[in-house]
């Protein structure tokens, strides 16, 4: 195995998303503060941490989904291949076409399975062979065998796990560079979860993946890099403010973390 210093220099050359001193607030309340994090390309990066530590908030900041939340504002900058996602002339639609998202609850469109995939591709101006794209996307998301015979049936006719993989296929179909997953398995049973994790191993060959998860075993299984977030009460503030405790290779985070809080959390000794 190569030394970790070599790996980190290789990684620093190939940063996909760079979060730089980012503070995200809802109204006057700061949800997460002063986050620095460089997400490497072609890897799976996991965000772990207790509820309310702001990991989902940070994830949504990566493709400007926070824009949809009233009163949400961001300080600092998020660089995507060197471009500032929060620059004054940035079109959030352009951002989301390059950085796709899979949500906690499977949310297929009330359309046929085929149309679920074709919708995103079509509005993104895809002009190639649609049948081929649908098949390829469904295969990549490992759900092709289960729905190849019912492409014209509603997306709701699938089980929860299949729906979630359909949503992943839908995101793949727009050919983004990055796929963000916000607790994609929290609504699923262990078998579906396993299938999605296997899917992710395949996907990281072609995409950069960022996943938020409450399940530490999942983080250990799927991710190359792990960021541990925590929240602490601040003086004079109402509620807790989230912050990034530690960001490192998953192995390091779980085996020899540099922070005591990380050690406590990953070993289950967390207040």
């Amino acid at each position: 195995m190569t030394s970790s210093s070599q790996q980190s220099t290789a990684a620093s050359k190939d940063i996909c998303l760079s979060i730089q001193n980012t503070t995200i607030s809802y109204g006057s309340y700061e949800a997460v503060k002063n986050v620095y994090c460089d997400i490497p390309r072609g890897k799976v990066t996991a965000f772990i941490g207790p509820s309310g530590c702001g990991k989902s908030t940070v994830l949504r900041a990566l493709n400007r989904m926070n824009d949809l939340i009233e009163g949400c504002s961001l300080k600092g900058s998020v660089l995507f291949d060197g471009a500032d996602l929060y620059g004054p002339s940035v079109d959030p639609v352009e951002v989301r076409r390059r950085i796709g998202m899979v949500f906690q609850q499977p949310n297929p469109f009330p359309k046929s399975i085929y149309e679920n995939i074709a919708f995103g591709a079509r509005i993104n101006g895809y002009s190639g062979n649609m049948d081929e794209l649908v098949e390829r996307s469904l295969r990549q998301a490992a759900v092709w065998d289960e729905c190849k015979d019912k492409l014209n049936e509603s997306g709701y006719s699938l089980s929860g796990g299949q729906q979630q993989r359909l949503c992943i296929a839908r995101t793949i179909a727009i050919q983004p560079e990055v796929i963000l997953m916000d607790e994609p398995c929290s609504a699923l049973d262990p078998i579906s979860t396993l299938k999605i994790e296997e899917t992710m191993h395949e996907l990281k060959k072609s995409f950069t993946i960022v996943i938020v998860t409450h399940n530490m075993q999942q983080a250990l299984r799927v991710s190359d890099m792990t960021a541990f977030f925590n929240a602490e009460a601040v003086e004079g503030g109402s509620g807790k403010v989230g912050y990034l405790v530690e960001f490192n290779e998953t192995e390091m985070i779980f085996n020899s973390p540099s922070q005591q809080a990380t050690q406590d959390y990953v070993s289950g000794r967390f207040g």
Partner: protein
Amino acid sequence: MAISPTASLRRDIPDLSYKQGLRRNLLNKILTFLVGLFSLIAVLPLVAVLAYVLIKGGSVLNLTLFTAASTGLEGGGIGNAVIGTIIVTFLSALIAIPVGVGGGIFLAEYSGGGVFANFIRFGTNVMAGVPSIIAGVFVYAVIVKTKIIFGNSYSAIAGGVALSILMLPTVIKTTDEGLKLVPDDLRRAALGVGASKFVTILRITLPSAFTPIATGVVLSIARAAGETAPLIFTALFSPFWPEGFDAFFNPIATLSVLIYNFATLPYESQNELAWAASFVLVLFILLINLFARWLRRFAST
């Protein structure tokens, strides 16, 4: 040892039977009877009106009614009024549906619940309660009296505008509420695959809310079709068939105004026409309501 520990707690078999004479049971019966009676009284007018109109109107029904116009005092038909009602209602829908659905989309999707949006919501609620004759007077003053439509005073278009004012609040409200029912998950899903807000609304949100919106629109059409007051001094009346393109710019007969005009005339044949028109109008509105119900069921499957 042979005696179980609960044996000492055992008593005689309890009397659980229903007792007629008990105060609470008596009160229960009386109140049930009372509310049943009141609900019966409440639907009585509906049944009575429907039955009366259907019997009175049905007895004078024949085919020439629909093939003749209400010209002259002897005989005639209500064919022109049937066509007129359809034309005026169609015109009002043509105005109210795009404006109302557009306004509803703005309220639900774009406004973000600001002061302006709340002002519009309040305005629509007030407008829904405005007496229909006020809408008629307003259109009379703005369109009929000023002869703003190519120098024509009373016209089908003026009638359509008056009815559309009545339809608007319902259409705006049902669109607004229908869109609010669409789960945010769907909007996020569409935005997450790079759809713009416009595409999201047009292709995902609006189709998902189609049924409540369509139901609201259909019901508002049913309401507009039966209105009389706003039409009396906008569309006025005409004993002749609406002809070609001119029909839009000239006074036009409608079922409701025909009833208003003919029901109190001292001529037997006119009175019969009024009853026939009542019959047709009631049936018309009944059918539209059934259509709305069907739409609702159609979507739930």
